[in-house]
């Protein structure tokens, strides 16, 4: 059997139930599974958004995501974790990112999922480009609030 992929960067959509089931497989001591699904909004900075396109840095992206995942395992007692991030063109309401974490206790799982998501926002090389209804395109600027969110986890 192929090794379970803890990190996936892909154009295809994912199914939350399937992913959580796979994450729990073989782990009988799990008391908590926390999952977060990020979705594409149809509005940003007051403008309607028609298409969201995700670019990434192949090779570095996987390494960055794995580092973030391993850091979460260092900080909290987790049984398993999974990150899926989509790339390419997406439309409003589509799923863009999945973070799922399992642990014996919910507190660890909540914290770890939150941490992974905050770190991913500022440390994984993904860039968003929006297409507005008039066809114009613009790159999404990094938010100061994302950097602030990351800082809360500083030791």
């Amino acid at each position, binding site marked *: 059997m192929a090794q379970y992929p803890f990190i996936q960067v892909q154009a295809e959509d994912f199914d939350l139930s399937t992913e959580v089931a796979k994450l729990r497989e073989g782990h009988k001591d799990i008391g908590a599974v926390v999952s977060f699904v990020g979705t594409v909004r149809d509005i940003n900075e007051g403008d309607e958004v028609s298409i969201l396109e995700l*670019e990434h840095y192949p090779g*570095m992206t996987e390494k960055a995501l794995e580092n973030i995942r391993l850091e979460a395992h260092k900080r909290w007692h987790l049984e398993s974790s999974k990150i899926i991030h989509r790339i390419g063109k997406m439309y409003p309401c589509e799923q863009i990112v999945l973070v799922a974490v399992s642990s014996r206790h919910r507190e660890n799982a909540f914290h770890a999922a939150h941490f992974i998501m905050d770190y*991913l*926002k*500022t*440390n994984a090389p993904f*860039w*968003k480009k929006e297409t507005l209804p008039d066809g114009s395109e613009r790159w999404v600027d*990094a938010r100061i609030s994302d950097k602030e969110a990351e800082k809360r986890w500083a030791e």
Partner: protein
Amino acid sequence: MLNVLYFASFREVLGQAEEQLAAEYQTVNELLEALAQRGETWQQALRDNQNLQIAVNHDVAQRETTIKAGDEIAFFPPVTGG
């Protein structure tokens, strides 16, 4: 040789995604100074850009990071995934 990559808005502004350069720079900063010689667009996007993000061989790097032949150096704006 150095493999230099440009991502996202940098790729568009600079008009290229990748190039090979002679490995004649000791640090990222020296490479940036050389690229700045190409003109204002390069200066603004890279050397003078306080938000410039750098990676060397897939690891986050700084302007002071040393580089050598065979390295992959990437320049990009702050990330916006998730």
